C-alpha cells in the first residue's frame, strides 16, 4: 500500500514540472509552513512576505529542474528558504539581525501555568539565537520545524552526518551555556 500523502505530493510535483501553472497546488499546500518558518527567522511581516515571495518565485522557476530524491518536496523549499534568509542578512552589518528578534512570547497559555519551565524554554531559545548560524539553523529546522535529519540535510545542503554533528554541537553548547545562566534557586 502506498503512502498516499506522499503519492499525492509526487503527483502534484510531476504535474508542476510538466506544466508550471500547476504549481499553484504546491503553493497552496506549503505556503503556510514556509511563511511561518520565514517569519520565525525574520520576525517582521513585510520582510517575511518579501522572502516568502522570493522563495516561491525561485521554486517556480526551478521546477523544471527539480529532481525527486525521495525526500519531501518541502525539504527542497526549505533549502531555498534557508538560502534566501541567509542571503538577506549575510551582508548586513554591523550585527546579526536575528538575535534581537527572537520571539520570547511564544509560550502558550498552558505553559503560563508553569512559569519556571517556561522561563527555561525562553532562555534556551535566546541561547539558540546566539549560536553560530549553521548550528542555529540546524536546531531550528529540527526542533521548531520538526524535520527529519535527512530533510534538514537537503535543506542545508549538507550530509546527514554533518547535520547530526551540528545538532550535537549546538545542543551541547546550549547545555553548557544554560548551566552558566541558570539563576540561583
Amino acid at each position: 500500500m502506498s503512502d498516499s500523502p506522499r503519492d499525492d505530493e509526487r503527483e502534484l510535483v510531476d504535474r508542476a514540472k510538466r506544466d508550471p501553472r500547476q504549481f499553484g497546488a504546491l503553493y497552496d499546500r506549503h505556503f503556510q509552513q514556509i511563511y511561518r518558518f520565514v517569519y520565525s527567522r525574520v520576525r517582521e511581516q513585510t520582510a517575511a512576505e518579501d522572502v516568502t515571495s522570493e522563495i516561491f518565485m525561485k521554486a517556480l522557476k526551478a521546477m523544471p529542474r527539480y529532481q525527486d530524491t525521495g525526500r519531501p518536496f518541502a525539504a527542497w523549499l526549505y533549502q531555498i528558504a534557508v538560502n534566501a534568509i541567509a542571503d538577506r542578512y549575510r551582508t548586513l552589518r554591523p550585527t546579526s539581525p536575528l538575535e534581537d528578534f527572537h520571539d520570547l512570547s511564544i509560550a502558550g497559555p498552558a505553559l503560563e501555568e508553569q512559569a519556571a519551565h517556561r522561563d527555561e524554554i525562553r532562555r534556551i531559545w535566546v541561547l539558540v539565537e546566539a549560536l553560530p548560524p549553521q548550528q542555529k539553523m540546524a536546531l531550528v529546522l529540527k526542533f521548531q520545524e520538526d524535520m527529519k535529519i535527512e530533510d534538514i540535510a537537503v535543506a542545508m545542503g549538507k550530509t546527514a552526518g554533518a547535520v547530526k554533528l551540528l545538532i550535537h554541537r549546538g545542543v551541547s553548547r546550549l547545555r553548557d551555556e544554560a548551566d552558566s545562566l541558570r539563576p540561583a534557586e
Partner: protein
Amino acid sequence: MSMQHDPDLDDILQDQELRHVADLLRAAPVAAPPIDDAFRSSLRRQLMNQAWGMGGGVPWWRKAFGPSTFVWATAAVGVILIGVVVVLTANNPSGSLDQVYVTSPISNQSAVRLQQPIQVMFNQPMDHPSTEAAVQITPATTVAFSWHENTLSVTPTAGNLAPNTQYQVTIGPGAKTASGQSLAAPKTITFVTAPPPSPSPSPSPSPSPSPRGVLTGQHLLVSLPEGVTNVQWSPDSSTVYFITGKGALESVPAAGGDATVLVPDGVTSLSVNPAGDHLAYVRKGNIEVLALGTATTVETVPTSTPAIVGWAPAGVQWAAADGVFTVGPNGLVKIAALPNTGTMTPISFSPDGSHMVFTLDQSLQLMDLATAKSIAVGQPGAHFFGWSPDSTGILYSSAQSVVLADVGGRYTSSLPAGDPSWSVQDEILLGSDTALSEVRPDGSGETMLQEGTFHNPAWAPNGTTFTYFRGGALFAASAPAAPPAAAPLDAANSVVSSFMKARKDNDVARATQYLDDKGKKSYSGSLNLLVTGDPSFSRYYVLTQEITGSHPDTVQVVVRIVLSHDNIDISTYEETLTLVRTQGSQQFLIDDASAGPLLTLGKSAEVVSVDVSSGTVKVTFDSDLKPETVVAGVIVLDDKGKQIGGTAVYTSTNRTVTISGLDLKPGKTYKLVVLPTVQDVGGNNIAAEYDLTFVGPADEHGDKHRQESPSPSPPASPTPTP
C-alpha cells in the same frame, strides 16, 4: 519531564542532559505568524502570471490564447479598442470606466515637504464615506479628509507630516465608486518626507550668483617687459619683494610707489626671513643673505648650485642637486639627501622650513626634513601650488581641481580649479583668467569676489591685501573680510552628507577621504563602509547632532541608515560619527564611528529626530502618540542610570516629546530611553525599547548651535579627487 521520542536523535543525544535540552527546544510552541490573506492571494496571482509566461507542455490552443501569444494576436484589436475607449471617454467626461485608478503626485517621491496634504486622485467620482473609511496610513496618523472633485486630500490633524519618514497610504478594497463599484485591489501610495527644517539658515554653500565686486585699492605695483617672479611679502605686509626677468632683486611698497633695486642681477631664488630683516637669495650659484637694516651681505659658497632657498629656525637653508643644506657653526651642514636617480627639481620650502617639495620625474614629492623621508602626493604630473601659512598643509593640482592635503600627504579637501593662495585667516583666493574667488579650506563658502584676470594671487601676511598678475604686470588689492566660517554643525554636516553619499554610491575611495586614520580603523573592523545586499541601503538621515567639544571643534552626529526592499523600508541601524576639525585645512574629518543594532521597522512609532541642548531634550516621533503614554515612557538617564529632568510633555502638533529641566554636563554620557509602553494613536506599543546614548553638549557653544536634523541638501559638498 520527558517529551516525545525522536529516533533521529538517538545516536546524537545520548546524554540525559542533552536530551533535556532537546525536550526544552521542542517544547516551545511556534507562534502563528500574522498572515495577510491579501498577500497570500496576491503572491499566488503573481506566481500564476509567471507560470503562464513559462509555458511548457502547453496545448497549442492554450498557447494560442495564452498571455504572450494572445498579446500579439490581439494587438491590432487592442489599438482599435483604445480608439473606441478614447472616443467613449471623450463623450463621457465623468469617466465611468470599469477600472478604478488611484494615483498621487507624491507617490514614490522622496524629501516630500512636511507642510502639505497627501493627495489621492481617482479616475472617477468616488463614494466619500466608504473611500475615507478605507484609507489606512502608516505610521499611525490622525488625519482629516477633504474632497475636490475626484481628488481626496488626506491632511494630518497635527498640521504637518512627520520628518524623515516613509509613509504608506493604502486605499483598501472597501472604497467604492459613486456608482457602487469596489476597488479591485488595495492601492498603496508610498513616499518619504524631508528632514525637519533647520532652525537657523546655514551660510550659503554655493558660489554667489554674481560677483560681489568688493575688491578695493586695486593698483599697479610694477610692470616690466621682462616679467616678474618670486613675489614675496615682508612679514609686516608693507613691502613686496620680487625678482625681475633680468635677475634683479627689487622691492616695492605695497601701497604703491617706486621700485627699489636691492641686487642688480643674477638672482634666481628669494626668501624673506620670519623677522623680515634679512633676505636670502641664490645668486650666481652662491647663497647670499642681505641684512636690510645695514645693507650688508654675507655670502656662502655651497658644494653645488642651489635651486631654492628658504628659512628655518636655525637660519637659511637651500636645496641643491646633492641635498638640503644649512650653515652650521663649523660650516655647511647637510640636512637631508635628495634622490640622485631620475630628474629631481627642488620646488619650495614650507614657511617654517620643516618640509620641502620637489619633483622627481613626474612625481610631486613632499619631504619631511627632520626625517629626510619623502612621500609622493597627488597623481603623476601634479603641480605644487603653495603652503598653508602654518606649514601644516599643502595645495597641489589634480585634473580638475585644487587639492588640499596635510604634510603627511593625506587628502583633506578639494577646491575648484584656479591659482590658489592661502591666508592666515584661512581663506583661499582662487585666481583665474576670468575671475577671482574666495573659498574656505574645507571647500565651503565659495564666493566670487570679482570678474577679470587674476593670476597667481599671493596673500600678504595680514590676510587682507594680496598681489596678483594681469597682463604680465604685478598688481595689489584688498579683499573684504570673508563671510563668517560655517558653524561647526554645518561644516560637520556637510562632511557627513558627502561621506554618506559616497557610501551610497558604493565609492569606497571617495568615502575614505572623509576619514582620518582613526576613522579608517573604525571602518576596518566590524563596520563596513559599503552597505550591500538586500534589503539595500536606500536612504539615510541625521537623527541628531551636537557639538561635543572645541579646540579642536568636535561634533557628534548620529546617522540612521535605512535599508529597503522594493522601495519599502525594512530595517534600520544607527551609526554614531565623531567628527573633528583638522588643523591646517580646518575641514572636519570622521575620527570615530560605531554602530548600533539592526532594528526591524514595524508598524509602531519610531523616533525620527532628537534635539539635545544642555537643558532640554526633544524627541520627535513619526506617529501621533497617545499623550498619556508618553509621560512615563520617554525618559533621560544619567551615566548611573538615574532618571533626570522633568516630566515629558507631548506636543501633538509636531509629534514631539520634550523633557526639560535637565542640566546636562559637557562630556558626560546620558541615555534617552523610549519604553515600549509608549503607544501611538492606533494603540500600537513601541516594538522594543529604544535607547540613544548621547554626550552632554559642550559649554562653549550653548543652545544656539544645537539643531534638529539638517536640511538634506548639504552645504558645500567638497568633491574629493581620488
